[in-house]
């Protein structure tokens, strides 16, 4: 039903409006967010930000739900959305398809049990305490990844972890399941549907902070190199005036978005550029392993 209504509204829009490409002539600001947790929760989280930006720009701001990391990449590359909150890896995937997209901000994240404070986080390999105490015990067990385009939930483990154990994940583990999000991976791990999961340290902290796990629920059997935290990225088609206004609104007045930052376990915004993600790009390009069935 939802699909149909989208199609109908799109066809109407097609007939009534001409293609708007002029400077800052757009009628709304569209934001998409990678589904790190459930889309409903994300939409809820982002309402303060949307309201704030709408207020700053004077046009409505809306969030576009996404089914996968790749659909957010598609959307930012095609100009289907104006701003995307991407993971480092999905940013680089998008960057490879459209070098004109522009990372401009990232969150300064709280220090957590699993995550150091600042701008970096890590990919973790977690396993229930009673399941295994060393990596070897996880051989031929089931592992959960989040989304193929997730940095800590797929990309980095596929590259770094594979390099460490000397074989692709699909060989080291008996089966590799893409759950779609970090939260689903953690849930699968808690419910015993998998024996191990690669998740972002920030999501593990979020679970710890909300009491869904305790510090001793999981063993951390592997940690990736530090990864620069997720960027907010401008589409290449967004007019420069809006870019400037958004940048200054977000980076200039962190207090205005305190509620939103709390929901993201962050303390503020920080300015980023492509340079912060350059090291990861090199890793992604030089090393290769996995394959599609």
């Amino acid at each position, binding site marked *: 039903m939802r699909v149909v209504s989208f199609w109908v509204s799109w066809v109407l829009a097609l007939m009534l409006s001409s293609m708007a490409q002029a400077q800052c002539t757009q009628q709304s600001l569209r934001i998409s967010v990678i589904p790190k947790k459930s889309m409903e929760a994300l939409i809820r989280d982002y309402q303060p930000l949307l309201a704030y930006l709408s207020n700053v720009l004077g046009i409505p701001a809306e969030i576009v739900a996404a089914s996968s990391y790749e659909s957010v990449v598609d959307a930012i590359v095609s100009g289907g959305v104006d701003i995307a909150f991407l993971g480092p890896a999905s940013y680089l995937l998008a960057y490879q398809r459209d070098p004109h997209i522009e990372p401009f901000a990232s969150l300064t994240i709280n220090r957590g049990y699993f995550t150091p404070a600042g701008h970096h986080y890590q990919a973790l390999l977690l396993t229930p305490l009673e399941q295994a105490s060393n990596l070897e015990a996880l051989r031929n067990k089931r592992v959960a990844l989040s989304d193929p*385009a997730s940095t800590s939930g797929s990309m980095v483990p596929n590259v770094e972890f594979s390099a460490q154990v000397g074989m692709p994940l699909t060989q080291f*583990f008996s089966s590799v399941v893409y759950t*779609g999000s970090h939260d689903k991976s953690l849930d699968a791990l808690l419910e015993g549907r998998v024996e191990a999961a690669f998740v972002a340290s920030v999501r593990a902290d979020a679970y710890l902070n909300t009491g869904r796990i305790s510090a001793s629920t999981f063993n951390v059997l592997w940690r990736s190199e530090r990864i620069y935290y997720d960027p907010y990225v401008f589409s290449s088609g967004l007019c420069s005036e809006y870019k400037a206004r958004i940048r200054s609104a977000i980076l200039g007045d962190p207090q205005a978005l305190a509620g939103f930052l709390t929901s993201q376990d962050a303390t503020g915004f920080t300015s980023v550029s492509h340079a912060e993600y350059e090291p990861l790009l090199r890793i992604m390009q030089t090393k290769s392993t996995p394959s599609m069935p």
Partner: protein
Amino acid sequence: MLCTTTLAFLWELFFQQKAISRQEALAAKAAEHLNLATITAESLRQLVDRAQALGKVIQIDLRGQEGSKHWSLVRMLAEDPALKRMALYEPNGRMLTASHPNEPAQLPTDALEQLRQHIAIYGFKPLLPNQSLATQHTNQPSWSLPFLLPLSDSTLSKLESILLVQSDIGYLAGLLQHIDLGNSGLLRLLDSAGAERLRVSNSGVVMAGEQLSPNLPDNSELAGKFSQYSLEGQYQSLYRRLPQRGFSVTVSQRRDEILSSSQHIYERQLYLNLSMTLLILMGLVWIWRVLGKRQEAFLALEQAQQINQQLIQRLEEEYRRSSHAAATDHLSGLYNRRQFIEIAEATLAKQRSKRHLTAILFIDMDRFKSINDSLGHKVGDLLLQAVAGRITHLLEPGDEAARFGGDEFVVLLAGDRSEEQIDTWVKTLVSKLSAVYALNEHELNTSPSVGVAICPRDGQMMDELIRYADAAMYSAKQAGRGQYRFFDSSLNVADIEEFVLEQAFSAALEERQFVLHYQPQVRLESMQVIGYEALIRWQHPEFGLVYPDRFITLAERSGFILSLGWEVLRLACEEMAFWRSQGIKAQMAVNVSPLQLRQADFSDRVLSELESYGLDPACLELEVTETCVLDAEGQAIEHLQSLRKAGLHISLDDFGQGYAGFSHLQMLPLTRLKIDRSLITKLSNTHNDSPIVSSTIILAKRLGLEVIAEGIETREQLVYLRLAGCDIAQGYYFSRPMTADQLHKYPPFMDSMETTCA
């Protein structure tokens, strides 16, 4: 049997129910999974069908703005949860335009060929091509599923263009995220070549999962069920095929998991069944063992019984065997009493059947005792041997002779003799036996007294014939030495003594002519007199002192014995009362006739007699013979039992003479066994041990009886009996029977103030 049936029923039911519930669980899951496969396939079909319907409109938009940005389209695609990217191609595969950069510029020829074939069969319907068709930007797994949408011209006859739509795998996975497939449940999307394009489990999209084989069955069925296997086990798979869209959906789950719930129930049932089976089997084993033990006990009892039986048999056998060994009298070489009676009875029967007369002679040597005493046993023995030799010499074929003990011989004359011939034969015998004996430098003169009884004139039975012959012998002895007498007085020339005696009985009783003489009984262990046997004598005014052997038989024959018996008891009680007045408590033994015991009031009268004198029943001992108890219908035994109960002592007299076996004795309430004097006499004749006497003593002890021996005459006999374990002895060696006056002066009697009647 019942157990087996119960167990069979139990397990049959268990397996049947298990099989049925397994089938039911699998069937229920199959229905559920087929529905799921159908719904998934159908929603995917509707998704691409709608995309195609709208694709016709979109192509106008795309064609109109080739090479430029398609804002509306990309915004729409950004919002669309299912579709990601679109690209438009000419029928030859060259790209016209695309919503996103990086779409393949040329469609592969394989995909074009597949689409052509698809159109030929199913018309212009969307198709899942057998390859990915996505440009791989990195080494990440592709997260999109391509569909080729053939767009026709308005006439619907010609392929105008091809729309490539990339749908989001994340969307498809999201559709199923809340459906519980179970731990091992898998939903798979297969293309028309059977290759797996997508695998969704409970947790999400699975890469590099376990391979399932075999593939989808190669038939035209649109839906169905089949079994697949992986390393983890057997899967039940349901499929829904959509050939007109080029894909199939299968839903699989491990059989183990499907069955696990019922498995759990049946495991519990299994343990229940096992414990019930165990219980039943244990019960069976228990019953088996109890029965076995009972059987064992029974067998053991039976075995003990057998051993006892064997022991008794062996003892009796031994007794019989040793008795038989003594069948002949080894001094004379003649039969002994017992053997003689056996043989004589047979001969008598033959004689009677031939209607021949048979004579029984009872021979007693006169003066034998004085010869024995004066010249010694050796001479006595030689004399007896000589007598035996002379008797044997006179016998004709068929005649038998025996020595009954001491100097008594019995001869049976068979053959066809007349009374005169018998008389002649006896006369010859008397003269032969009266001839001078030359024995070891001694010349002896002695003579026999012979009594003769003739069958059938005097009696029919051997024992009465012997008794009559014995009686006749006494008559002869009475008449003087070297005499013989026939029992039938008519055959006797002159013997009216018996007749006179018989006539004199009642008068004798009235005049109290009967007196008692007393012979002491000595306990061998202490050599003390413990009691006396009362022996009856008839103080006849004419004949002098008459011994019981002369009148008891007469008394029995005339029935006078009953009055005589009571007279004896009265005399005994009188004497005992006197004893008591003197403070002497010795025991008195009184002989009882079989006839007395047949009286109905015997025991009552005895007890009332005792009571009237105020005597302790324990001081009276009744001596009975085997015949008392052998032929009575149990009344005699009843009397004895009630008397025994009252405290009287009962002893069996003359044991060893008759036939009574030991097993017979067990029935009698006896306190003592009195060994017959004939057995004791033999002890004086030989220096060898007498097996009869010793085994009799042993057996009597075994029955808990005291043993008393009568007729002790020599020191050797005493020593032997003492060694053999005999308790009490009586005989000339100690004292002859004494009159009351003699007794009262008898030193042991005077000293027996301390004795008791126990």
